[in-house]
């Protein structure tokens, strides 16, 4: 098939999908309408279980099983990336040379490193109260470490980033979620049920199992992002094929 024919086929297909989508959308409730039966019930359930951040309550309590699946996708994708990006036989590792860093960049990146780290951990710890949670806080925490790469060089990043530990952390976060779920079984309820005391509304200890599951996710996401970025950085900085130089 020539390129022109392919474009025509594509145009017909896209037009068909567009008609289907528009027909479906005109049947949806009006944008901004007041009726949200699932939302109202979710808010009610979240307040009944003393979790101020309804989204955390949905993710880690009301549909905790779904979040387990989501976490497993993350874990599987990181595992796949690690396998795909390993050093092959015809490649060699080269020592990356330190690059010149502007003093202003160095100063602000080093100032912001501890700030970003604390903000990330804060977002994870307050997932049941304020907007945020394990996924978002984990990514912020992982980014904090990489400020060192921007401020100093690759060696400095490697020194605070023992890969093995982060790989174990990734697996431990995934495992902790399962163990917390199974703890519900031992406590006499069902898998991933919220079996802990619910605490006082709008305090750090509220929400029963929500803050614990949140912390497990935060640990997994932070470690997974560090591992993921490390593999891509290795490809970019350290590993060279036969032909390159």
């Amino acid at each position, binding site marked *: 098939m020539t390129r022109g024919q392919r474009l025509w086929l594509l145009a017909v297909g896209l037009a068909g*999908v567009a008609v289907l989508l528009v027909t479906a959308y005109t049947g949806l409730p009006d944008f901004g*309408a007041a009726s949200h039966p699932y*939302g109202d019930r979710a808010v009610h359930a979240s307040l009944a279980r003393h979790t101020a951040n*309804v989204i955390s309550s949905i993710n880690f309590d009301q549909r905790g099983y779904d979040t387990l699946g989501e976490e497993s996708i993350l874990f599987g*994708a990181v595992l796949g990336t690690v396998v*795909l990006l390993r050093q092959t036989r015809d490649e060699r590792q080269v020592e990356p040379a330190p690059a010149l860093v502007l003093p202003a960049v160095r100063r602000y990146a080093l100032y912001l490193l501890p700030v970003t780290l604390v903000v990330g951990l804060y977002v994870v710890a307050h997932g049941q109260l304020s907007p945020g949670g394990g*996924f978002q806080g984990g990514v912020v925490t992982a980014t904090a470490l990489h400020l060192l790469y921007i401020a100093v060089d690759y060696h400095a990043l490697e020194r605070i980033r023992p890969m093995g530990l982060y790989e174990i952390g990734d697996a431990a976060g995934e495992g902790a979620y399962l163990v917390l779920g199974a703890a519900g079984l031992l406590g006499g309820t069902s898998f991933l049920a919220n079996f802990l005391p619910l605490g006082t509304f*709008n305090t750090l200890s509220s929400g029963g199992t929500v803050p614990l599951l949140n912390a497990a996710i935060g640990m997994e996401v932070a470690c997974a992002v560090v591992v993921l970025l490390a593999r891509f950085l290795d490809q970019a900085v350290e590993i060279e094929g036969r032909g390159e130089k």
Partner: protein
Amino acid sequence: MMSVLPYLVAAWIFLVGCYGLATSRNLIHAVGCLAVCQSSTYVLLMAVGYRNGGTAPVFSDIAPGSRPVVDPVVQALTLTDVVVGATVTALLLALVIQVNKRHGTVDPDELSELRG
């Protein structure tokens, strides 16, 4: 008309992403187009969950029942969507790196031959 506009925006982003995906001459570009397709689902989910005058469904600084809140269920789904999208993008980019190493090209039209 105004009430379907956000949904139409989602459809438009999706179709633009599909067009880019189908006409792409570079696998990295194709992975980017897939991310565009996926971002249309964020717009759709947020549009479905919006409520006029609604605020974020977080009750740490507002009293429950004092203001309408937007639908938290679709927001949780969007969070799932973002996480899955980011990790799948990373996996696909890793695959592109391997394809480039094996075949020396990232043009999908030149990748027709089988190689062991």
